[in-house]
């Protein structure tokens, strides 16, 4: 056992954990934040993707102890975040989920893609989503939702004509 000191969605958490516990299991079973889903458990499907120190990572193949000192953001941790509000609204309008199992990972990836890449186009979005599997195969609405948010952000970033 090791004492893990970590911040989850802005809150400090200190907890003894088994060395072999995954970050995904810690988030779900100790923090009871079950919005992070566990699919393949070997880093392929992307369902468990969350932000660690602001970057998307696979929480199923990251040990909780390896995240000691880190800042974790799960799908529950975006209250009042303008970008995530826009992404969720676009997912809603485009019906970009069916069963919803992949959605929290998709949202984390979409958040990263939209905040990191200024010159997004459809090909790049498709490539960036390559690590998140949707077994309902509803990829097109997900891509469209991300395109919508990117278009809104590009439009609002342009200086207004005087």
């Amino acid at each position, binding site marked *: 056992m090791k004492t893990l000191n970590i911040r989850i969605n802005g809150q400090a958490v200190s907890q003894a954990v088994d060395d*072999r516990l995954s970050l995904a299991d810690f988030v779900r079973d100790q923090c009871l934040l079950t919005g992070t889903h566990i699919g393949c458990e*070997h880093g392929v499907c992307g369902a468990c993707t969350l932000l660690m120190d602001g*970057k*998307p990572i696979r929480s199923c*193949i990251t040990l909780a102890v390896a995240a000691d000192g880190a800042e974790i953001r799960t799908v529950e941790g975006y209250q009042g975040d303008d970008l995530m509000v826009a992404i969720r609204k676009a997912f809603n309008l485009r019906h970009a989920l069916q069963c919803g199992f992949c959605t929290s990972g998709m949202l984390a990836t979409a958040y990263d893609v939209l905040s990191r890449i200024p010159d997004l186009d459809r090909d790049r979005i498709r490539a960036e989503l390559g690590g998140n599997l949707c077994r309902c195969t509803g990829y097109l609405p997900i891509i469209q939702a991300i395109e919508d948010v990117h278009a809104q952000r590009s439009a609002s970033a342009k200086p207004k004509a005087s």
Partner: protein
Amino acid sequence: MKPASLSYARPATLSDAVNNLQSLADQCRVIAGGQSLGPMLNLRLAQPKHLVDISQLTDLRGASVEDGILAIGACVTHAEIEDRKIPDVTLGLMPFVARGIAYRAVRNRGTIGGSLAHADPAADWLTTTIAMDASLRLVGPAGSREIKVADFVTAAMETAIEDGEVIVQVLVPCFSPKAAWGHAKYAKKLGDFAQSMCVAVVDPGRKVARVVLGRRSELPSLLRGVSELVASKGYDTTSETLRSAIDEDLKAAQADRGDQTMHRAIVERAIRDLAA
């Protein structure tokens, strides 16, 4: 909880890490980003008793150029190379290759040193570093040593690393401004390991020409005849000489006969990419 029971340590210094590794010997595995070892732990293909996490060691994090060599800390991530957070001395080859590795969430944790230590023959860095004629600096109980990547890997997932040794740097020779590189990769799915990949580096300024084929089960092969031809005769893949050189080299590399056509196509594409 999927891995078998284990203990985890995150030593504060490199010498602590080496001491840890030496005392725990074969019960112990080094972990950096854990993007290869993590899945193997979960699948219980690897069941080490101890893990020594080197990912936070500052000595292993940065990169610097000295005497025409870029020394990349072993724990620099693929994403840092993709984003050019470290100097690029390869006219864009390394950032390009980095972007093709798995997915961003994997690239944010996975490290270049970890990938080479794992020595999966189909991994992008293995073929690329051998094409760049890169070396590794290792630190262990007996001190520090340098070894070419091509000599470091001895078989699929097997390396010449000794007990207690850690890869600390990947040493990449700086390309001259006249250098050209070509790349081609075929994978069944974006981000998957390559079925076949080829990296070609031709640098007249340093008299270097290396065309290297990577594949799933065999170590990368330097295609010697092809390398000489592209250096002396250029990149015309329609030439009969080049086509038969590719066939000869694939035969010498003992490329699986059932995959020869795919490998030939990938080598030709990489050579055409040299000219692009």
